[in-house]
């Protein structure tokens, strides 16, 4: 398909989305949809504008973004460092890795009540929850990447006389990068989910708390506004990470 065709389809697809939203508006106006649940795009938009005007939406968004970024960065650092250690050490692969593998299917959000008990309804608890939940995919993909270095690369390293640290930074880490990027992406998705869970449970500000409080007040437009912002966050963070990935893995072109 040519670029021209693809752009045409994209525009058509965009038009469909606009059409769907418009249809939603018509249905809402005609009171076909219960207005208490589906307030219509106009009311959602008004809630968004109101939120932006009084600054509360922006500050909640920033709070959520800050927590998400901090938790994700923490998980990435620990996950990649620990994963590199376990992946490069045959000893750790035998004695430690099975425990990580067994913990992988544990629903990360199940740790929320535990974290709440230890840390209370605090910012730290939300960060811990995100870091813990997003840690696993990064840890496991990094272990996978580091333990699957081709034997030839090891031989090249020994015949060149590379030091252990040079081997890790110049051969193992870049070689594991495709796996690590996959883990970072998965971790980001989990971080977004967990920041919302954490904020809903603790009600300490942020978009999660915002939509929860809106639900308690039966304020549907406010909920939709919050969901829309969360959707945009998900879309943008994913897109940015995709760009980074495309650049970092540009050597993988074929």
């Amino acid at each position, binding site marked *: 398909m040519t670029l021209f065709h693809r752009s045409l*389809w994209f525009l058509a697809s965009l038009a*469909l989305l606009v059409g769907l939203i418009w249809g939603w508006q018509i249905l809402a106006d005609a009171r076909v949809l219960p207005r208490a649940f589906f307030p219509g795009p106009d009311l959602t938009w008004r809630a968004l504008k109101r939120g932006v005007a009084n600054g509360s939406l922006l500050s909640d968004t920033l709070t959520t973004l800050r927590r998400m970024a901090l938790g994700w960065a923490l998980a990435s650092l620990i996950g990649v460092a620990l994963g590199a250690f376990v992946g490069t050490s045959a000893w750790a692969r035998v004695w430690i890795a099975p425990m990580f593998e067994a913990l992988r*299917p544990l629903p990360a*959000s199940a740790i929320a009540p*535990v974290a709440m008990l230890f840390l209370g309804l605090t910012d730290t608890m939300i960060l811990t929850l995100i870091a813990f939940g997003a840690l696993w995919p990064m840890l496991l993909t990094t272990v996978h990447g580091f333990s699957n270095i081709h034997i030839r690369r090891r031989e090249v390293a020994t015949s060149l006389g590379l030091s252990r640290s040079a081997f890790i930074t110049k051969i193992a880490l870049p070689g594991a990068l495709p796996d690590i990027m996959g883990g970072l992406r998965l971790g980001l998705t989990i971080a977004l989910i967990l920041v919302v869970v954490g904020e809903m449970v603790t009600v300490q500000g942020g978009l999660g708390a915002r939509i929860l409080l809106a639900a308690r007040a039966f304020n549907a437009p406010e909920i939709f506004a919050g969901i829309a912002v969360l959707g945009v966050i*998900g879309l943008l963070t994913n897109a940015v990470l995709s760009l980074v990935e495309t650049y970092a893995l540009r050597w993988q072109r074929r």
Partner: protein
Amino acid sequence: MTALKGLVLPIGLLIVWQIAAMATGMQSDTLAAPDGILVALVNGLTSAPFWVDTGDTLAAGGMGLALGFSVGAGAGILFALVPPVSRILRVTVELLRPLPSIAIVPIALLIFGFGYQLEVAIVAFATCFPVLVLTESAVRQVEPRLSEVARALGLTAWARITKIVLPAVLPRLFVALRLAAGIALIVAITVEIAANPIGLGSRLLRAASSLRPEDMFATLFWIAFLGWALNWGMLRLQSWLFPAMSRSER
């Protein structure tokens, strides 16, 4: 042998934990010793409410999975076989896909109230997108090779789907189901923790907020075991149903 080595560290940690608890004579609202947790777990496993909660979580997650998987797989097959549908819906799907499923809990709560329906809806929403993506790519990759065969044989569209496409994508459809099952359990528990007062997630939250760490850790270990068992069972099922697939994938 290697499997046994993997057990050494967790068991060692449990022993250290137990000894530390006994040595300090720990009295805590937040921590529990392994023996206390074990007692709580045994008590739970021999009492009806514990199994009611387990059943609630599995039933809601299972129904959500069934719904989400059907919708996702159906849409995925349609998208792959009729590319214009996929192209025209691309923007809408890409916009909805990264939306954290938990964010729609409040709106689902307004519509359905507390209970099964809420959880089923969220689980279905969360599972249907990954299944859609996996199914679409699975069908895409099989179709070109076999569609010519189908055309040469003069098969109808229906026969093409049932005789050619489905058998060819079945193994990868199962992989999608396996991953979706994991997501379903996670989302079900998450919904229960965040809002819905049923199931194991809510049990966990109750134990935590009423300062019963033994019960809390017992439930946590039980959830971890369920997640592990589900994953293990699906993997075994996969290698039994599609031996060739499992060998290449794992």
